[in-house]
């Protein structure tokens, strides 16, 4: 039985796809994190994002995070799906879904996965503003 779903997609992500993958008749708790594009960042007006990925390495790092979640927490299945390319306002940038017999582990695993993804997965976000664009987090 496949317990990990790891994906980078240049087309819109579906919350239901991630949910359907993780949902399991042996688990009562499903925790999901859905990251979306917001219209403001530090007071500036955002028009859209562009995600650049080092795809094979990003998939490997996402897979490692999934393995860590399965090892550290009592989790049955995990999905980590990330967008690439042009992502508009309110669109989904990332979906993480976790199923677990006990909900506390599901929350911890889901939070661990998104926190770690933001630190280790080689994906870069260019934020496009009304008056320019910049690579998020690149400069001091």
């Amino acid at each position, binding site marked *: 039985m496949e317990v990990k779903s790891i994906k980078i997609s240049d087309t819109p992500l579906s919350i239901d796809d991630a949910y359907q993958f993780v949902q399991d008749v042996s688990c009562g708790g499903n925790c999901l994190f859905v990251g979306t594009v917001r219209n403001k960042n530090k007071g500036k007006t955002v028009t859209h994002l562009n995600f*650049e990925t*080092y795809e094979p390495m990003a998939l490997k790092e996402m897979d490692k995070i999934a393995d860590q979640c399965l090892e550290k927490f009592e989790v049955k299945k995990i999905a980590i799906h990330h967008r690439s390319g042009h992502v508009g306002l309110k669109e989904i940038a990332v979906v993480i879904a976790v199923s677990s017999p006990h909900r506390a582990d599901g929350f911890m695993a889901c939070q661990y996965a998104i926190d770690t993804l933001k630190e280790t*997965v*080689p*994906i870069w*976000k260019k934020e496009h503003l009304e008056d320019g664009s910049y*690579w998020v987090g690149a400069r*001091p």
Partner: protein
Amino acid sequence: MIKVKCFGVAREIIKSDYFELNRSDLSVKELRSALYESHPEFSMIKGFMIAVNQEYATDEMAITANDEVAIIPPVSGG
């Protein structure tokens, strides 16, 4: 010849998807120094990691011509 993949702000600094270095082997640390020397703009970003064969590499690691090498500027997914 070592070919180094460039992403995000590194791609914009290098002005190309890759950077070619006319060496057959060197350490990660030496690659870093070579990059800072050829492109001083690297000192204006928060730093970068080097990946060798799609894994984060330490400064001591050796790079040879067959390795897949990449500059990993600060990541910002999610």
